[in-house]
C-alpha cells in the first residue's frame, strides 16, 4: 500500500476506476410526487452524490416515501491516513496455546465471562467459552489450561465483578449484543468505571466482544481488547495466553515492558 505517508486515495468503484458510484436508500416523510422525487435527488446530492438518479420512489406508509438513489460520490478517503488498532493475536492452534500456558505460566488461566445488563444474548459468549465452541473451534471450557466460568446472560456488572474477585480471575470477558441507543457502550463503560472505583481495573485483563464490537471501540471504552463477528475461541485463547505471559514478564522484570512474541 505504498509508503505510509504517500496518500492512497480511495473513491467508490462501480465498474470503472474513479466513477465513484454509490447506492443509497432512505425514507422521507412526504408522499410520492415529482416534488418528492426532486427532494430525494437533492437530499442525495447533499451527501455528495453527483448526477443522483432516483430509481425507486414508493409510498411505504401514509405520508412516507421510500427512495433508492444511485449517484457518483465526490468523496474519497485516504487509506494511508487510516490507523486502526488491531488485536495482536499469534495464529496458534489449541495445542500450541495449551503448551505455552503450561510452559510459561504453569497454572490455569482463570476466566469469567458474561453477557451483561439486560442483554440475554448468550450465543456469542457461549460460542467463546462453552465446550461446544464455534464453527468447529472448541470453546475455552475444553482447554485444560483454562478455568472457565460462564455466568450466562443478564448479569449485572456488580455481580460479574464480585464473581471475578471471588474466583481470582485473570480475565473478565464481557459480551454485548443489544446495541440500540448505544446500550452496549454504556454497559461496558459502566463496568470499567465500577472497576476503577473499586481500584481493581488493573488486576484483570478486560475483554469485550459482540457483533458490533471491534478492538478500536473496546480500547475507547477502557477495555484491553475487543472482538467482533467471526471471532473463534482460539483467537481469544491465544490473546489471553499472550497477554498473561506479558504480564508475568512485566512483573518479573518490572522495568521492561514487552510482548511475548517479540
Amino acid at each position, binding site marked *: 500500500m505504498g509508503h505510509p505517508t504517500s496518500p492512497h486515495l480511495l473513491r467508490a468503484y462501480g465498474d470503472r476506476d474513479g466513477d465513484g458510484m454509490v447506492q443509497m436508500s432512505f425514507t422521507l416523510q412526504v408522499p410520492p410526487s415529482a416534488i418528492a422525487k426532486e427532494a430525494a435527488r437533492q437530499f442525495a446530492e447533499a451527501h455528495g452524490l453527483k448526477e443522483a438518479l432516483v430509481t425507486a420512489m414508493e409510498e*411505504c*406508509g401514509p405520508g412516507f416515501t*421510500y427512495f433508492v438513489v444511485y449517484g457518483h460520490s465526490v468523496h474519497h478517503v485516504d487509506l494511508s491516513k487510516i490507523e486502526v488498532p488491531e488485536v495482536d493475536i499469534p495464529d496458534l492452534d489449541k495445542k500450541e496455546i495449551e503448551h505455552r500456558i503450561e510452559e510459561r505460566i504453569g497454572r490455569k488461566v482463570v476466566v469469567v465471562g458474561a453477557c451483561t445488563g439486560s442483554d*440475554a444474548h448468550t450465543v456469542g459468549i*457461549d460460542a467463546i467459552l462453552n465446550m461446544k465452541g464455534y464453527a468447529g473451534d472448541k470453546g475455552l471450557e475444553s482447554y485444560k489450561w483454562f478455568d472457565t466460568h460462564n455466568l*450466562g446472560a*443478564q448479569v449485572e456488572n456488580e455481580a460479574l465483578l464480585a464473581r471475578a474477585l471471588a474466583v481470582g480471575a485473570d480475565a473478565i470477558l464481557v459480551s454485548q449484543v443489544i446495541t*440500540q441507543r448505544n*446500550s452496549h457502550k454504556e454497559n461496558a463503560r459502566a463496568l470499567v468505571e465500577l472497576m476503577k472505583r473499586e481500584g481493581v481495573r488493573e488486576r484483570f485483563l478486560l475483554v469485550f466482544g459482540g*457483533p458490533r464490537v471491534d478492538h478500536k471501540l473496546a480500547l475507547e471504552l477502557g477495555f484491553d481488547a475487543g472482538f467482533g463477528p467471526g471471532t473463534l475461541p482460539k483467537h481469544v485463547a491465544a490473546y489471553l495466553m499472550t497477554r498473561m505471559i506479558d504480564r508475568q514478564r512485566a512483573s518479573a522484570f518490572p522495568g521492561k515492558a514487552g510482548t511475548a512474541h517479540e
Partner: protein
Amino acid sequence: MDESVVADCRRLAAEIADEVQGFIDRHTTVGVERTVARAYGIDGADDQGAPLVNLLVERVHAQKLLGRGIAFFLGRELLRGAPSLQEAAERLAYGAAPVDPSGPETLAQIQAALAAPTLAALARIDAAVHERDGKRERLAMGPTPHKYVIVATGNIYDDAVQAKSAAHGGADVVAVIRATAQSLLDYVPHGPTTEGYGGTYATQANFKIVREALDAAGAELSRYVMQTNYSSGLCMSEIAWMAAVERLDMLLNDSMYGILFRDINMERTFVDQYFSRRLIARAKIVVNTGEDNYLTTADAVEAAHTVLSSQFINEAFAHRAGVADEQLGLGHAYEINPWIEDSFLLELSQAQLVRQLFPKHPIKWMPPTKHKTGDIFHSHVHDALYNLVGVTTNQSIELLGMFTEAIHNPLLMDRYLSLKSARYIFSAAKHLGEELEFKKDGIIERRAQEVLANAHAMLVEVQREGIWDAIARGAFAEVKRARDGGKGLAGVTARAAEYVNPLLDALEGRA
C-alpha cells in the same frame, strides 16, 4: 406419517403435562393474584409508578397469606364495608394495620360478595370478543399465511405510526416488541411509554394506543388488522388480562421461553402460564408459542425434534387450560444454516411436518434470524425462500423476516420491503402447495420421518424423568435450568385450603 407414532407422542405429552398440572392446581403466584385484582378493576399506581395491584399482593404475600388468594381479602373487605373493590384494594395496600389474618367471614359469604364483580370481569372479556367478532364480520381478513410484522421504536406513539404503515403495506398482524428485559420486571408499567430499549413496554395504555391505530388503518383498508404482544415473563397472566380486554388478537405466550431464555423459575411460570391461558381461552385469543427460539441456541438440523416434542407438550398444556386447537399457534422456525446443501429441502420438510401434525392449529412460523448477516441484500433473498416455503406449506401465521435482522429493529422502510416481498411471493406461488407432491422416500419425506422418530424418543425420555428434570439437563434449546433456580420463585405459593379465586373457577367452568 405413522399415525400410531403421532398418537403415542400425544399420549406421552399428555402424561408429561398432567404431572405438571397437578403442581399447578395446588399453587398460585403473585402474578396470578395481581391478575385477579386487575380483573376486579383494581387500577392505578403510586407516585413511584408502582402499580396498586403489586403493593396489594406484595403486602398479603409478605404476611404469607397469599395462599388464600387475593380475592379472599378483597371479598372480605367488601363484606367489611368497602364501597368498591378499588377502595378495598387501597385499604389493604395502604392501610396502617397489617392484613388481618383471621375474621368471621365465611368462604361462602366472600364468594357471594365477589359473584357480581366476577361476572363483570368475564363480561369485559366477552365484550371484547364480541367486538372482535363484529369487526371481523364487517372487515375481511387477509388470506393465510397471515403476514406478521413487528414494530419496536421504544416510543409508543412512533410505534403507532409504524403500525399503521405496516397495515398499509399489507400486514395482517402487528406486534409491538417489548423493551429489553420487560420479562424480568415483576410488575406491569403504567400508562403510555416513550422510552424503551429494543422495544416498547407492554402496558395497557400502550395496547390501547396501538389498537386504535390498527382499527383506524383497518377501517381505511377494509381489512381487519390483528394486534399481538407478549404474555410472557413474570407478568404473563396480567398481560393476558390486559390483552383480553384491549382486544388483542394474539399473544406470545409460553412458559418455556421464560424458563430457557429469561431464566424465569419454572414453577412460577408454569402456574402463571396456566392462568394466562385460561384467560386467553375465554378471550378467543390465539396463542403463539416459542419453540422457534430453541433453534437460536441449538442447531436447527440437530435439534429439530426438540421443537416438535415441545410442541406436543405445549399442546397438552394448552388443552388443560381450555385452549382450543384453533387457538394454538405452535411456534417453529426457518433457522437451518442456509449454506448447507439442500437446506431448503430440510426446511420444507420441517414446515410440512408441523403443518400436517397440527392441522387445525394456526401454526406460527418464524423467519431466519440466526444466520442473518449485515449483508442486507442477501438477507432479503434468504427471507424470500422462507416466504416461499411458508406459502407452499400454508403456514398460518408468518412472522416476516427483515433484511436488517442482524442490524437493528426494523425501520419503516425495511418493513415495507419485507411486506412487499411477502405479498409478491404469496401471490406468485399461491397454489404451489396444492400442486406439489413429494417423492416417496425422498430427502424431504425421510427427513420428516426422522424428526418425528427423534421427537418420539425424546418424549419417551421426558415422560420418564418428568419435565422438571428434562429442563434441568438441557433437553430444550441446550439451556439448563434448575427447578429451584431462576427469577420469581419467591412469588410462588401453595394454595391454602380456603383458596378463593372465583374468576378461575368461572374460567375452569365451575361457576
